[in-house]
């Protein structure tokens, strides 16, 4: 399967409203192949909506959306998606491997049983997430960071070309967060990664560009994310704590840099 040339994601003047409330207004941006970008913005600002439009789960009222140069929904097979882990029923009786195997559904038509190839792909995805020894554990028995990595493993088990991560750092401790940074960087070597975060410190460490969403959409290279930009996006001054895990002391700063 060869990708058609052009951007992986292209949005042109996309507007979306939910129950009469305008959530996105004239959003236009492109994401190129192999890029690592982050969608940031306040809660309710339209970040998750943007992801759902890319997945074809929500349909914009106006504008044009192309994913791999095709309408969203048609190219889902090439997209890996990780939702937030908090929405899951902790009592649901599934093992980690069961969950990762769910990512293999739909890779090649209907399947009565998962094949040896499916299991191999699932185990590979788990070892890449450093969770090979937890394959038979219950999802509920894992920590927040581990659950997040299980969901990433599920997302990548179908070998996607585009990976969408919704709040990978939500409810994850700093140590697990550092591990996630490495993981996401490694994945980016073979796929385009778009992630949603409200955590600007985490973002500035790894991505090249941020897509700032607060009804309207602005693109900034990370080096340009200054106090002024943050004020524009969040509509107020925001005190930032930089998550710099390489140094002993965290830096308190009014902007990112």
């Amino acid at each position, binding site marked *: 399967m060869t990708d058609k040339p052009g951007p992986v994601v292209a949005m042109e003047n996309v507007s979306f409203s939910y129950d009469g409330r305008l959530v996105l207004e004239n959003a236009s941006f492109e994401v190129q192949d192999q890029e690592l970008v982050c969608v940031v913005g306040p809660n309710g600002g339209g970040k998750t909506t943007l992801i759902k439009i890319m997945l074809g789960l929500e349909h914009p009222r106006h504008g044009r959306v192309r994913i791999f140069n095709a309408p969203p929904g048609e190219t889902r097979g090439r997209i890996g*998606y990780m939702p937030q882990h908090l929405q899951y029923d902790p009592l649901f*009786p599934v093992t980690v491997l*069961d969950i990762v195997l769910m*990512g293999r559904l*739909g890779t090649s038509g209907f399947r009565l049983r998962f094949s040896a190839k499916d299991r191999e792909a699932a185990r590979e995805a788990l070892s890449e997430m450093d969770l090979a020894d937890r394959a038979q554990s219950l999802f509920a028995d894992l920590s927040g960071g581990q659950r997040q990595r299980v969901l990433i493993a599920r997302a990548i088990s179908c070998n996607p070309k585009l990976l969408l991560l919704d709040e990978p750092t939500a409810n994850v401790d700093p140590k697990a967060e550092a591990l996630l940074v490495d993981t996401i960087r490694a994945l980016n070597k073979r796929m385009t990664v778009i992630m949603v975060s409200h955590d600007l410190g985490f973002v500035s460490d790894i991505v090249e560009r941020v897509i700032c969403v607060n009804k309207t959409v602005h693109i900034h290279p990370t080096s340009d994310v200054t106090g002024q930009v943050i004020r524009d996006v969040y509509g107020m001054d925001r005190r930032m704590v930089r998550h710099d895990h390489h140094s002993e002391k965290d830096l308190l700063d009014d902007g990112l840099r």
Partner: protein
Amino acid sequence: MMAFVDALTAPHLSFLRYALIVGVLAGIPFGLVGAYVVARRISFIAGAISHCVLGGIGAALYCQNALGWTWCHPMLGALVAALIAALIIGLVSRRAREREDSVIVALWVVGMSAGLLFLARTPGYVDPMSYLWGNILLISKIDLWLVVGLDVIVGVLLFLFHNQLVAVCFDEEFARLRGLKADLYYLLLLFLTALTVVTLVRIVGIVLVIALITLPAAVAGALSRRLWQMMGLAVVFCIAFTTIGLGASYTLDLPSGPVIVVIAGACYLLVSLLKRLIRRFQK
């Protein structure tokens, strides 16, 4: 208990044999489907579907006795009503922006009331109690074949779609993104629940049938790590509850439905308490 075993072989007590066979055969779909119902937390939907069954039974009896449609067997009415109820709940929860619980309760009470109204207008005496609480004296060979048929249908469908159903129950949105028709699988689960509910209406009755969907699976859930383990154990528990319950009800001369349910409830309570104790002990 020996009296029960003797009674099973007595020629004039064929209903008891039928009841036992139906109970054992019904344990299979109850355990299998019950595991999904409990894991997906839709027991209350199973409750609404089972209560709508009375509407179907009432309508069928009315057609049989008032309109002379002799082919209109009450169990046929039960089956049709259960499937329609499942379809309505499925469509409402997917499409309409209604409060789901309100719709479920509305269906629950209206289905039941419709049944009672039909029965009130049916000529001759029909005892609604025997349908509400179950009556093993009513079990015939037709019921036996009905259960066998439903066993096959439920078994085949679950064998074919197990992976898909688990994925949809665990994370519907993700399943949809993997190209599964999640709405269709959810509807399939509701249909399977409806079929299952109908099989045991004769023995435990409409009001109590929800107990045998939920309790064996809940007991099994406390003891298993994966859904298929839960399904297998739930089948075993369901068969054990109905068999022991039937024996006890015959020996003690008590109505079968409530005896079965009390045994299932007691077992659930016991297992929950034991699990809690063990967990505390481990800490």
